[in-house]
């Protein structure tokens, strides 16, 4: 079992909600797969597509962008902008043939520790069967 593929997931978590949600999961000792490399961003609206593509280039098998539910955004409309931008990035990545499961977005509020662990579990389970991401990864 040891050499089973363990996907590496880079998660961009909005500081006000999702990052707090993941902290809540940690504080309440919830069990969830350790494949996540969390990066806190000030708002999902500040997510530049470049971060996502750069993560895939550096070898991420999956990328998650998680922000506040619509209406909860600390900056009022950051997550609304993010919703459009991430939808476009997702469509473009599918257009060039990247597996759609590799790039996810979620709303996780500061109180949704369990939802956060649930999303990560599902994400890891979806990534395991499709193996490591070799398409955008920098090889030579």
């Amino acid at each position: 079992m040891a050499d089973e593929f363990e996907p590496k997931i880079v998660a961009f978590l909005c500081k006000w909600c999702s990052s707090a949600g993941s902290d809540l999961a940690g504080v309440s000792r919830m069990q969830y797969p350790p494949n996540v490399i969390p990066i806190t961003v000030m708002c999902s609206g500040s997510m530049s597509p470049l971060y996502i593509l750069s993560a895939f280039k550096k070898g991420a098998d999956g990328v998650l962008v998680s922000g506040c539910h619509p209406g909860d955004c600390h900056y009022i409309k950051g997550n609304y902008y993010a919703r459009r931008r991430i939808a476009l990035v997702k469509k473009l990545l599918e257009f060039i043939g990247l597996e759609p499961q590799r790039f996810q977005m979620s709303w996780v509020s500061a109180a949704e520790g369990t939802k956060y662990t649930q999303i990560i579990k599902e994400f890891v389970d979806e990534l395991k069967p499709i193996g490591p991401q070799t398409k955008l990864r920098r090889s030579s």
Partner: protein
Amino acid sequence: MVSLEELKKEAQMLLEEGKVKYIVGYERSTNGLMPVPAFIKNPEDVERLVWDPSCIYNLTRFLVDEKRRKEKEKKPDTRPVGIVVKGCDSRAVVVLLQEKFINREDVFILGVSCENTGVVDEKKLAEKLKGKKADKIEFSDKDHFVITSNSEKIKIPAQEILAERCLECRASFPVISDVLLGEKVERRPDEPFKSVQKIESLSKEERWAFWKEQLDKCIRCYACRSVCPMCYCDECVVDTISFAVTADTAAEEKAQKIKWIEKSPDSSENFVYHLVRAIHLAGRCIDCGECERACPLDIPVRLLNKKLEKEAKELFDYDVGFDPEKPSLVSSFKDEDPEDFIR
């Protein structure tokens, strides 16, 4: 039919009255069919202006250069610049106005309608002529082109040699202009996104194989970026050092410029460059097709932008470059924007 004489007359009048600094148009080149951009300063030179199906370039790019030059001059001549624009090019002017990059009084728009046809695709024409050299091409009656190839006149239905984007054209006459030549012909292409759908219909692995083979050819000459009127950032993600640098910019700031994309034409670097460029043009690209025409390796980079134009239409019902007052795609939102993909 658009009369070239009328265009010349308009241009001459503008120059004589000194209402414009210079006029950007098309003029005959010395090597073959394709014209070259003309910068006409004095009235008698308007004779050099031409208008025919080979006038493909999107001249809006030179409004960006004009602005950069003005910023550097101490006492700039602030008169507007005259520019000859087709339907698609005019939408590029609209996007520049929408983004407040230029002001309406900076530009005097000489609009020219393509009416029922459009501009020629060099490759399709070359195939059609099977090696014969085309010296001249002209509009002829409603929807034909006449090509003179060493004094032999060949009439070809325009539909067969039109540029890809003209087959999917959504504005055959300028949406914004100070002077408009030619009739306004409404154009509703039945399949506005046919070229994109061809790729979408492939399987995931086929799409990946297609893009991998195409983008591996890229030699990073950045012609697709340089020819695009919307790519006007002072500093681009691909530039190795920071440009907006003055004598007292702190060393830390220069040292911390992140190298997002390496200079070497490695497959993943090429992908990140082309995808970031496409995303930065989402809701801004008006499909003038210049990036694909300029690419020396014939990489279909236009399709990346066209895909996002299709998504902008389908997901957010957003039309690019028709209304200078409308907010741009990614700096606006609606409550009913789709979120089914969000967990």
